[in-house]
């Protein structure tokens, strides 16, 4: 296993592309090697892929370069320490690492004093839609959501990114994209609904 990110899974995908099934499996294997035998080359490969992306994520949240660098490193050290807790049947490596990075948001907010809440927007609302009873296996959901994302037009994908990844409120998205708030709400519902519709149809 080599530490330059060019292991048996082929060259790393450039930014803008998501990982394929084989690459995701490989990254889960690497995390397993860290957990079972503290494998440093495996860590180096994950570091090469994820650290620069986590840093970009933190920069988007308003961290400055030094903060983003520091927290990205800290996130990756946490990846090493918590590797044994990773359950590949429950989540992809990317989702798991995002969650660790996401939990660092509080640090970023502390430093930038960015308000984290839009007081006019409620946080917990029942949608009134009954939950489907069928419990879909986690990895099956992963595969299907990713396929659904590939089918979404870019403008809808952008809305999902801003809401689910960057954590902007609907109101903030409306301001950023210069769209009416109602349009943002309905488009996000549409985009998310398409994914669920696809889930139901498969």
């Amino acid at each position, binding site marked *: 296993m080599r530490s330059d990110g060019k292991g048996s899974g082929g060259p790393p995908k450039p930014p803008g592309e998501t990982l394929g099934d084989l690459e995701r499996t490989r990254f889960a294997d690497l995390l397993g090697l860290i957990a079972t035998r503290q494998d440093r080359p495996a860590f180096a490969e994950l570091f090469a892929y994820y650290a620069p992306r986590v840093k970009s994520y933190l920069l988007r949240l308003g961290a400055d370069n030094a903060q983003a660098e520091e927290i990205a490193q800290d996130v990756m050290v946490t990846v090493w320490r918590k590797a044994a807790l990773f359950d590949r049947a429950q989540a992809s490596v990317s989702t798991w690492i995002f969650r660790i990075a996401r939990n660092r948001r509080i640090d970023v907010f*502390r430093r930038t004093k960015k308000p984290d809440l839009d007081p006019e927007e409620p946080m917990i609302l029942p*949608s009134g839609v009954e939950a489907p009873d069928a419990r879909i296996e986690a990895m099956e959901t992963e595969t299907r959501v990713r396929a659904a994302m590939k089918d979404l037009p870019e403008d809808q994908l952008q809305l999902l990114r801003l809401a689910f990844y960057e954590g902007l409120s609907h109101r903030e998205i409306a301001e950023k994209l210069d769209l009416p708030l109602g349009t943002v709400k309905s488009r996000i519902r549409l985009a998310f609904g398409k994914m669920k519709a696809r889930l139901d149809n498969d």
Partner: protein
Amino acid sequence: MMKVTSATMMDEATRAALASGRAEPSLGLFIDTLLEMRGVSEGEGAIIAGATLEAEIMSDMSPNALDMAFAAIDRGRAAPKRALVYSELGQTPAFLQDVILAAEADRGWGYGGPGIRRLALDMSGDKAGGAAKLEIIRIGAGVKVPWHTHKGQELTLCIAGEFSDHNAVYGPGDFSVYDGATRHQPVAAAGAPAFALAITDDGLRFEGLLGALQKLFNA
């Protein structure tokens, strides 16, 4: 209490707030703990975020970033790992244990009345009024918490042990919602202490929200 296996009744704004970490930190931690203890996956929202991280642009890390990470890893290995004050909490989700350890190192457990100890979990980063208050309450075996009410709503999640009130018995993963007016008196089961993760809204911020959450999980 009814168990649920899906969180799909939440609307898109709520799911996005939870998946992205934008939710008020105390409420976010409470709901994450609740979902994890009940084996509920937040599903699509988390997957969207994870896939988006893959598509992220790459920002340059400093040339020695990897070496520094390994150095931090080695330092961490040398340092003795702090243990939880109460081993019962070792069964709670790992991210909650991290917060507990930080709080124990910071202020530690305080007196909460005879047989009761409290650990405040500071999630907000500032002490400004209005934010939700999150704490863990340890109720000694067989101890009755005095009858009380709250300024606002209180959501209580049993994270270890067992306690009961006039309504029901609560084991790990069970939770209750009290509005500001309802007087209640939790009692820990005999034989072992009970631990509750409790969030209160001080009557300001979450008006109506926790009730909606109750509907979500108890409907």
